[in-house]
């Protein structure tokens, strides 16, 4: 009897297994995404003089730049509501919008105004978000970027980085031996550029401190490379490194207290870390090959480029102890790594095996998979937005340096507009208050 029941149990188990096998789910791991269609309707304006900026246009561009949204053409819109309750779902379903953003700007006396906006879901036929932002006539771009941040956060769950800034160096060449270098700070989209520093000698590697108050850069103003820390608010400058040989590639620690950079005072380029308060210097790497381009992974870990393996690759070094760990294995050249703030995505200059051109690639540090993002060929100096959704890099077009903005998903790309002819070494700010 017992034997019989055992046999029966075995048979049942077999059948169940058979059933499970038959019913095994089919795995779907890839999709064919499209940017989410969204309509940003021109905002209403109650006031005398027209506004100097088209805020709805700025919002639309922001959302497009993320690579996750496709703003619809204004000409195709069937109606132009300015308040949430005026939205008719059918009008938007007709033209294929998933979401609608409407807004109304009102003057609140003098230069002051406020913008009341709503985000509407066409599928659910309801307003998801309705808020008000106030400011002055000179802050229209800030207000628009703030709106973009809030809509982006609501729809994606990711903090928006449209209110951030970038640094870059512009070179204006007047004659063979007369070039003016300026350190520029602008909105992330290139608007409202401000000159922070001007020099007859090159300026390199600008880098924002994590608190957004200071900038470190390399200046050749005394005809040799020296590292400066520049206080944005006051314009005060402090020379922090002027050792013999190379002083280069400064990078701020996440706590803002230390600066990692490259010195060649001991013969060949090595990574050093300086405690800014005490100016105490500590050598991090020690190898006869070239170690350069440090970037902080966290307060205790630095990633850098080294050719110790024969060709430039990215390594990771703990400041505590231990030997460096190689991070990149795909491609015969990987350099100038930067990380997204969440530390999951690494962006770098990459050369594929068997190719001669340099491109920007991202590497997922959890899964390890690498994706080449750019189609240009002399790409360098990638810098990532703090939320990791966008990156800017320098490349060359018709012999001049340009900055390209590309979404991390590779779907959106555009050139950063500028008044200058030659741009280089972009650096993205942290989230700014």
């Amino acid at each position: 009897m017992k034997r019989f029941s055992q046999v029966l149990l075995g048979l049942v188990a077999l059948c169940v297994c058979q059933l499970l096998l038959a019913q095994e789910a089919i795995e779907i791991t890839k999709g064919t995404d499209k940017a989410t269609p969204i309509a940003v309707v021109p905002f209403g304006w109650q006031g005398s003089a027209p506004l100097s900026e088209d805020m709805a246009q700025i919002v639309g561009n922001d959302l497009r730049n993320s690579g996750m949204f496709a703003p619809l053409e204004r000409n195709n819109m069937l109606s132009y509501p300015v308040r949430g309750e005026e939205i008719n779902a059918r009008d938007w379903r007709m033209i294929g919008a998933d979401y609608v953003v409407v807004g109304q700007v009102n003057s609140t006396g003098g230069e002051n105004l406020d913008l009341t906006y709503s985000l509407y879901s066409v599928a659910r036929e309801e307003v998801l978000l309705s808020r008000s932002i106030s400011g002055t006539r000179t802050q229209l771009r800030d207000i628009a970027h703030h709106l973009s941040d809030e809509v982006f956060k609501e729809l994606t769950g990711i903090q928006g980085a449209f209110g951030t800034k970038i640094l870059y160096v512009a070179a204006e060449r007047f004659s063979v031996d007369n070039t003016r270098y300026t350190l520029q700070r602008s909105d992330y989209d290139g608007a409202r550029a401000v000159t922070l520093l001007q020099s007859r000698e090159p300026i390199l590697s600008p880098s924002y401190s994590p608190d957004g108050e200071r900038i470190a850069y390399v200046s050749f103003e005394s005809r040799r490379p020296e590292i400066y820390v520049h206080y944005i608010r006051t314009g005060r400058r402090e020379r922090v490194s002027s050792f013999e040989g190379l002083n280069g590639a400064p990078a701020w620690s996440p706590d803002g207290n230390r600066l990692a950079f490259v010195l060649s005072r001991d013969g060949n380029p090595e990574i050093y870390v300086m405690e800014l308060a005490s100016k105490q210097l500590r050598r991090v790497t020690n190898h006869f090959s070239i170690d350069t381009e440090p970037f902080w992974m966290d307060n205790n870990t630095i990633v850098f480029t080294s050719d110790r393996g024969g060709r430039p690759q990215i390594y990771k070094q703990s400041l505590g102890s231990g030997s460096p760990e190689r991070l990149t294995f795909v491609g015969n050249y990987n350099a100038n790594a930067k990380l997204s703030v969440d530390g999951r995505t690494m962006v770098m200059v990459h050369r594929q095996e068997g190719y001669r051109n340099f491109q920007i690639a991202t590497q997922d540090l959890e899964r390890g998979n690498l994706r080449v993002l750019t189609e240009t060929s002399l790409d360098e100096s990638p810098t990532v937005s703090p939320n990791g959704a966008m990156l800017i890099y320098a490349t060359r077009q018709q012999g001049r340096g340009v900055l390209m903005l590309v979404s991390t998903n590779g779907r959106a790309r555009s050139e950063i507009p500028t008044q200058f002819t030659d741009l280089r070494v972009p650096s993205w700010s942290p989230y700014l208050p």
Partner: protein
Amino acid sequence: MSTRYQYRPAASERYSSPLLKAVGLHLLVAILLFASFSSAPEFEPAKPIVQATLVQLDSMSPSTTPTDQKIAGEAQQSRSPRADEEALEKQREQQQAAEAARAEQAEQARQAQAEAQRKAAEAERQAEAEAEQKAADAAAAAERRQAEEARKAAEAQAARERAAAEAERKKAEEEARRKAQEEARRKAAEEAERKAAQEAERRREQERVAREQREREAAKASALNELLGEETEFQQAQADRIGDQVAASYDDVIRRYVSQQWRRPPTARNGMVVEVRLSMLPTGQITDAVVIRSSGDPGFDQSAVQAVKNVGRIPEMQQLSSENPAEFNRLYRQRNLRFRPEDLSF
């Protein structure tokens, strides 16, 4: 001692006198030596300091020469009147004894000094040897350490290279496996198609034959029945044999159709999972898609359901359901799809 002393004048042979003197001298020396070492601390026990010993040695040597002359003079005087002889003798002996003692002491000092020198040299040599050994040890240790470090670095490098090679190899293997599978699937599909075509051709042929046969002779109808019966059995066997491969290829067909229609919302993240059950008619028409395990993100769930619904119909299913309805019923009338994105940038 005093007894021997008194014995000597009695035996006054000339030849015995020097012998006695010598014996006496030796005894005296021994005594004095003992006495001087026990009572008089003029000579500190020689310390093994090289310079100090040398000074003592130098100061001793001039005193030995006059004493020798004195001894020679006294030897001549020994032939002078006997009254003085004893005293002289005594004096001489004392002098000789003192002299011998001094010589002995000098010898001792020399020996001590030599010993000290030897010891110092030895110490020096030893120190040198030790230092050399230490240096050698240190060098060896450093070398060992360096070698160890180099070995470790080499090992680490090798490990990294191995890991890279391994990863590469795995990738290649995976690729090869995937290709092989694809190839197998393709071949199976081709084979199935070919076989189906052959089968159809054969069937047509057989039908033609059968028709001819029917037309010619009704009597052969039983043979025809037999033939058709065999035909069904063959079909069943074939379907069983290639069933699994066919199923795999139909999974791929569904995967392809659904992936093409899957538009993830902006809230989608790699690693989210939603499971959807689809229902299908034998025509390949999708009649339903419901979430059976939610991801927790309604938009993401909806995107999966919508992807299945947007597929509408999978025409390839028609073939399977007509050729092998049992297999279709078992695998595809209802089937779960697990949506788990891996290709997003977040």
